[in-house]
């Protein structure tokens, strides 16, 4: 979980950085915020499936590991 927190922290900080860079290029704040998220707006279905799979995979792995551990003890 600590690992997850660190990654989210890094992600958020760097999204912030990319926002700042957008501003420096000369975009408005609103458009730069839109620019951050608009790539996710036009995803196709297989793309979305891959997206969720990639995001969920570590939790599934973690979960299986936990189950195995508890089983190994019992």
């Amino acid at each position, binding site marked *: 979980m600590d690992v997850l927190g660190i990654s989210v922290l890094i992600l958020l900080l760097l999204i912030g950085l990319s926002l700042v860079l957008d501003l420096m290029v*000369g975009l408005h704040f609103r458009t730069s915020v839109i620019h951050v998220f608009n790539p996710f*707006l036009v995803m196709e279905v297989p793309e979305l499936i891959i997206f969720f799979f990639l995001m969920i995979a570590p939790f599934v792995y973690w979960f299986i590991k936990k189950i195995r551990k508890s089983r190994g003890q019992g």
Partner: protein
Amino acid sequence: MNRTIFFLIVIGTILLSGCWNKRELTDIAVVSALAIDKNEEGKYVGTFQVINAGNIASGEQGGGGENAPIRVFSATGESLIQMSRNAAAKMPRQLFYEHVKLLVISEELAKNEGINTIFDSLDRSPNFRITTRVVLARDTEAANVVKVLTAIEKLPSEGIIKTLKSAETMQGETVTVDIHAIMNALRSPGKEPVISAFTLKGDEKSGERIQSIQSTTLDANLQAKGIGVFKEGKLIDWLEDDAASGTVWALNKIQRTVMTLDWENEIDAVALEVIRQNTGVTIEMISGKPKISIEIRAEGDIREVKNQLDLSHPNILMNIEKKLGKKLKTEIEDAILRAQENKSDIFGFGEMVYQDYPEEWKKIKADWQDVHFPELKVDVKTDIFVRQTGLRNKPYFSDFE
């Protein structure tokens, strides 16, 4: 011993006689396309495009060169089923409808009589696949469409379907519909069908001959042209160009298309290839009246620039995005307006109302097409995102002064 013999006899009888549905491949004539016209006497004229398997055969025999890959028969009848019976009288083999890929309906028939009756019998028949594609024949008889040979593609019906699909993906002004979709639309009070049309350019007689596809230019050429709009089963309008593409956008059937934009006196100065899009339709009820909002998001790459635009600047791209969005918005709004003038809800908004607000729908269901739909408020919101600009960041003449 006796028992064994008895058993064998019984089994043998069953096995030997059990061939009610047996059809050898050499006993059937595979129909690949069916065209339906109506003659002066008011009878249906069916034109059957039958595959001449021997001439398609590939591999070492080559084949296909000398003889036409298809044979066309026609038959008349009061109803479709009678027509089919009459056709059987002309065929040495049993007609096999399971592989019909294309159904062509003539413009006349669609305009005057409507398509409701045809589709009932198609629906009932177990032999027709509901995925059979349907097109209209425009400015020509439906029979001509199935008679003409196509180049490159050996099977004309296959050729027409592929043309339809490539037009749909590359141009975005046609829709591919199948029997299933049309039937759904016909059945539902909240939706009207649209069907793409094909037209024949050139001499239809010589288009039937094998020589037609032996030269580099075709004597007769099939071409996708417009979308037919139906109301109560009858063809009432043709949509073309911007109206067609706006309709396809609103139908969420755009796959890829090219959008152009005028820029500083230059017409069609910027061309954007739309690569993928996402259309969302939401319905709100405001004081008993539905309000539709369509939200379209599309992304694509810039493919052509006629102006001295410096695409490496994000602000310019943003301008392009905005202008394209505006253009798309008016295009779609125009298309919806046209549909409202036609009083034909081809977008299926009524159906959406039914799904989201079934109670209210009951009240407005009866005169949805004629009263409520034309007055419907539709909000269109479009967002276009430019992603890439091709291999270059500036046009090659950017340094010209």
